């Protein structure tokens, strides 16, 4: 995050080793065949596509591109981009600048992981700012579907932290 974050959409063609036209074709393929999840690996590039919505069109997606470490010119994993979500996924964004910690203390279990069911007001993480530990709470109840930031990374105002699929209201 300390590096410049460009506000360009995913489709601006800036991901190494990925032919975005191909990703588009894969998404269309998924749509056509009603697939929920699709994963493949080719030439050191590992692509996983997962539909977030169960209804009708593919309303929300996360695209995670991880370059395999086995390649000679391996790069560090590309962090998951800020989710461009609509429909069901609720994104928790950082309200402050600071350092993101996924657990209450080093070595402890993280507050939440992917798949965890959480309530309104539940603490999801800590963001340290100016030597103060700020607990970040969820404002919805639901299931964690995405964790966008790595433990110990700096975050800025508005940066996506978690994607939550809210529980449907009864």
């Amino acid at each position, binding site marked *: 995050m300390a590096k*410049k974050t460009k506000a360009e959409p995913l489709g601006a063609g800036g991901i190494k080793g990925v032919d975005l036209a191909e990703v588009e074709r894969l998404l269309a393929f998924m749509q056509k065949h009603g697939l929920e999840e699709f994963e493949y690996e080719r030439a050191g590039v590992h692509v996983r596509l997962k539909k977030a919505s169960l209804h009708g069109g593919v309303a929300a997606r996360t695209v995670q591109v991880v370059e395999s470490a086995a390649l000679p010119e391996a790069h560090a994993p590309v962090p998951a981009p800020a989710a461009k979500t609509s429909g069901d996924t609720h994104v928790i964004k950082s309200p402050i600048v600071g350092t993101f910690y996924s657990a209450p203390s080093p070595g402890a279990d993280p507050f939440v992981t992917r798949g965890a069911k959480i309530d309104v007001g539940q603490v999801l993480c800590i963001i340290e700012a*100016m030597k103060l530990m700020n607990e970040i709470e969820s404002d919805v109840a639901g299931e964690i579907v995405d964790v966008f930031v790595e433990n110990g990374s700096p975050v800025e*105002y*508005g940066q996506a932290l978690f994607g939550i699929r809210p529980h449907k209201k009864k």
Partner: protein
Amino acid sequence: MFRKILVANRGEIALRVLSACKELGIKTVAVYSEADRHSLHVRFADEAICIGPPRSSDSYLNIPQVISAAEVANVDAIHPGYGFLSENANFAEVCEASHITFIGPTPALIRMMGEKDRARAEMGAAGLPIIPGSDGVVPDEDAAKQVAAEIGLPVMIKAAEGGGGRGMRIVRTKRELIPAFLTARAEAEQAFGSPNVYIEKLIENPRHIEFQVMGDKHGTVIHLGERECSIQRRHQKLLEESPSTALDAGTRDRIGQQVVAALRTVGYSNAGTVEFLRDGSGKLYFIEMNARIQVEHPVTEMVTQVDLVKTQIRVAAGERLEDSVGTFQAKGHAIECRINAEDPDTFVPSPGHITTFRVPGGPGIRVDTAAHADAVIPPFYDSLVAKLVAHGRDRAEAIARMQCALDGFVVEGIKTTIPLHKRILADPDFLAGKFDTHFLERMAPVEAK
């Protein structure tokens, strides 16, 4: 020397500071609000951190966010620019406590100069001529009456925590005094958080003349000449020039030396501007000091060839002025026009999307701006679009170059005050160097608002 500096500002001054850092080989960190996501200062910095939503109070004025960004980016120093946190003594203290160098004067001096009545008292005690007036804050109505009787009407009631032309009221008759006093206190409380006011004799038709100063951390203070800033609207400067046509060399040297001596006495360091009013008889009176770099600093830079922002960084890093500035000479004449995104006749703000932005150039022309074609001027911040500066061998050449440059400065999509500046640069009184702070009111009016 610092490794990395965070610029706690936006717009043209952020770009200015980024350039100075880059020239010194220092890495840069920009902070920005969501409204400035695509700004040039964000794009040109080495790193950029979003610190809040558009409102200044939630972003550029948000001390915890700015400090947090500085810590996360691991910077050595923060340059506050002008406005925003640049004269916030508390912010300077928080920087110190966080082991980050604040590029500016010490918190104590920022505080001293920020309390206008105190600055007046201290500078008076240190030898600068001050306007006859109250001995500090005027506590109540009886005191106000007494001061007014002693110094004689008309008087000016000024907010102690004000400055920059705000929080001032004129009183011409005895009858107006107490109502004005009470209203001024109420306004001051509202605007600046303190109802404290002081009173000075009103100088009629003054000229505003200010001296640029710079101090290092080793006790040396220098002045870099004066700027004349009488062309103002509602106390906001529109045009500045150096040297002033109202000062002869003798007065300049004398006042300059007094300024340097006074600031050495109080231990001033880093950049600052000492403001004076000149009355009809030619006497100069200290009114206030701005403990920061100012908008119009390019005027002095063009005349002296001294890079004031680089010097700020260098003295903050501990360098001696004799090394970072050395000797310099004032050469020629410089004028600056502040081009604002406003209607040139009504001054109604005109934020929006710039479609055309053609900037003039040529010998002696400098343009400081963060605007460009396709940029959006957001409505949340000040309306400054660009600073157009012209330098020439003498005042006539600077004027001629400025007139040409204004003709060649094309901005479309928003309204700007370029037409107003063209009128000023064609005005006979301006050309003759005969004006005071009421110049703009007297300038041949355009059609009614």
